[in-house]
């Protein structure tokens, strides 16, 4: 199968490409960009006029809900959503049921995902057994089974000694430890940011210190143990500043934020809308501003969807009882574009935050397209407007704070290894 993608604006941040050019794909790989190779006869020509052709998106956090939560979403529905969102590689956190703490579970997930021939799935293994924060998992075995890093998902480790051992053990093998910084005690029972909105609404609150104390602990231990740490879903200005200082000091640490925290604040909770019940909680305006600026300067390495499909029964509850999380795979791209436009970030730099940098955090040779590299790419029209309504989402989870919003930017085609896995015209 040979494909020619014609008339598009090709943006490949890692290789510094931003030009109008045709892309030629053969045998699942990029054969050429610009000039047609000799003897190239396209079986299919994709018209990318008015479109941007960029590497397939790499999402650092997408819950596929398998195994264990198939009533919320299935691998099929969520992989469909990924392709529709232009995502070709995704990391899934270990908070499945049972958690991804045994090689067999990881192999099964990889196998099921591979058979769907859609996006590439990279499991993050559980750092501790059953995510219980007590006993380490067989990390080396899990790596052999396909895990690309280790995490506690949203379960905090309250015993700091266990955290030290986990970091030491991971450092032994050079594994990256993904931690969402949260002090288990300070966050206990909380459902919203500890600020005026929670005070007025009478919602149990989570203070800044729940995040910043954990960041301080993790950064100190990362330095002491030499472990490579990735901080997930930062939510506060102060935490971002701590990461900036740590990076300036030469510590090898990376971090990400979610699309929800990039655009929303505690004020958006309004009258207890459970779609705004998120982990970590939406914080104040100044925190959102720090997130937007930090992502532009690179203190924050990557942006992720933190895709968490929740069924209606679990979401249509009073705010505090409603399950936290939002669907996001199909919103990652348009919300990145929205941020870039509002923050005046160069398109290529914005795309790097959802391609090149997340791939580097995952240790993957992905998120770019050099000649000879596998053809994972996303073709989108940056002008197309569409409204976020349940029917417009392929994910089984229709829970998102952006319901009703108008998005600008829509994926037209997604290709994985030179195969068209999403074609907007056919769906």
């Amino acid at each position, binding site marked *: 199968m040979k494909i020619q993608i014609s008339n598009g604006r090709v943006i490949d941040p890692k290789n510094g490409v931003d030009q109008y050019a045709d892309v030629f794909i053969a045998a699942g790989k990029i054969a050429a960009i610009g000039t047609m190779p000799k003897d190239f006869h396209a079986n299919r020509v994709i018209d990318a006029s008015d479109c941007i052709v960029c590497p397939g998106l790499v999402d650092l956090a997408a819950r596929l809900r398998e195994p264990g939560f198939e009533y919320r979403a299935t691998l099929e529905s969520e992989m469909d959503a990924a392709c529709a969102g232009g995502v070709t590689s995704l990391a899934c956190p270990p908070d499945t049921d049972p958690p991804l703490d045994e090689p067999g579970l990881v192999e099964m997930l990889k196998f099921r995902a591979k058979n769907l021939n859609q996006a590439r799935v990279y499991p993050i293994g559980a750092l501790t057994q059953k995510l219980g924060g007590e006993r380490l998992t067989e990390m080396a075995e899990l790596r052999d089974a396909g895990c690309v890093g280790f995490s506690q998902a949203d379960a905090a480790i309250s015993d700091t000694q266990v955290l030290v051992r986990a970091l030491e053990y991971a450092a032994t093998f050079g594994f990256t430890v993904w931690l969402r910084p949260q002090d288990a005690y300070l966050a206990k029972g909380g459902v919203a940011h500890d600020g005026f909105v*929670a005070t007025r609404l*009478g919602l149990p609150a989570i203070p800044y210190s729940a995040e910043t104390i954990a960041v301080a602990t993790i950064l100190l231990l990362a330095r002491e143990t030499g472990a490579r740490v990735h901080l997930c879903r930062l939510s506060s200005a102060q935490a971002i500043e701590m990461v900036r200082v740590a990076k300036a000091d030469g510590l090898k640490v990376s971090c990400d934020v979610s699309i929800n925290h990039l655009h929303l604040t505690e004020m958006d909770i309004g009258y207890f809308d459970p779609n705004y019940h998120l982990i970590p909680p939406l914080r104040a305006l100044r925190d959102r501003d720090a997130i937007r600026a930090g992502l532009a300067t690179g203190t924050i390495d990557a942006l992720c969807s933190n895709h968490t499909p929740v069924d209606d029964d679990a979401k249509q509850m009073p*705010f505090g009882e409603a399950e936290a999380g939002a669907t996001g795979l199909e919103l990652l791209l348009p919300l990145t574009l929205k941020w870039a436009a509002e923050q005046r970030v160069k398109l290529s730099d914005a795309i790097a935050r959802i391609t090149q940098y997340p791939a580097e955090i995952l240790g993957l040779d992905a998120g770019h397209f050099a000649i000879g590299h596998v053809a994972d790419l996303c073709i989108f029209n940056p002008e197309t407007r569409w409204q976020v309504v349940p029917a417009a989402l392929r994910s089984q989870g229709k829970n998102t704070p952006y319901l009703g919003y108008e998005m600008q930017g829509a994926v037209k085609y997604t290709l994985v290894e030179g195969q068209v896995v999403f074609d907007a015209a056919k769906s």
Partner: protein
Amino acid sequence: MTLNPQLNTDGSLRHLLTIDGLPRAILTHILDTAESFIAVSEQEVKKVPLLRGKAIFNLFFEPSTRTRTTFEIAAKRLSADVINLNISASSQSKGETLLDTVDNLAAMQADMFVVRHAQSGAAHMIARHVAPHIHVVNAGDGRHAHPTQGLLDMFTIRKYKGEFHNLRVAIVGDVLHSRVARSQIHALTTLGVPEVRVIAPQTLLPTAVEQMGVHVYHDMRQGLRDVDVVIMLRLQNERMRGARLPSAQEYFKYYGLTQDKLALARPDAIVMHPGPMNRGVEIDSAVADGKQSVILPQVTYGIAVRMAVMSILAGN
């Protein structure tokens, strides 16, 4: 973002969910209407036919005696049919969701739901969900709001003090966990009370509470100086078990209302409490039963205020 969910498009009251965001005119209208119902409660036949044929469901997901009873009496005096449900004991334990419960009751031709729930925002969620002809009255949701209690407290203050614009009011105790305190603060500031004080240790105050328009005092003696109204809040026993307070004895010594501390307030100051009281914890019996206490009249007025709220909602 969204319009105030408790108002109709013409600005009239459709649900009573919180006092936060309600215009002063609506609060005053409720208080004035309540005034007219006081007379009804004093007649030999304590009934008016305003809500005849209406079905009012008291949905109590959390136990309550006083609030539920006064709502029931209020509805009966308006000639409505009242159905009491203590849901904690039935559907919820069978796994039925809150909205399923509401749907089922709505199918029984309910006209009004009076809801109490342990989660902040529960009444809002029900109000968002029900058909347009159904009214929802929040009878207490989590730590968020207890608007009829706030209103009956305003009614009591107006009865004894006449006006709001020249008052100093102190609210003492566990503001953090108190839906009553939040509703009182919104009501007092909306009605034009120039100085609202909250008095409590820092462990019982929510973050940024000053932004609700109150002055914070940690020293009760300072906070009570020259106030016209003292509102005591109930201290739940469970607060003693956590790390918020060391002991009931120490709390009473520093934040309990005694005659001696009350003497710092204006000589004609009134003492209020939403009940149920913990005598010897937040309030001394001598004060609770003393001549400045208006705690029992509060309960009586609660019926008239709830009659007012229900009749106004049903008419809108």
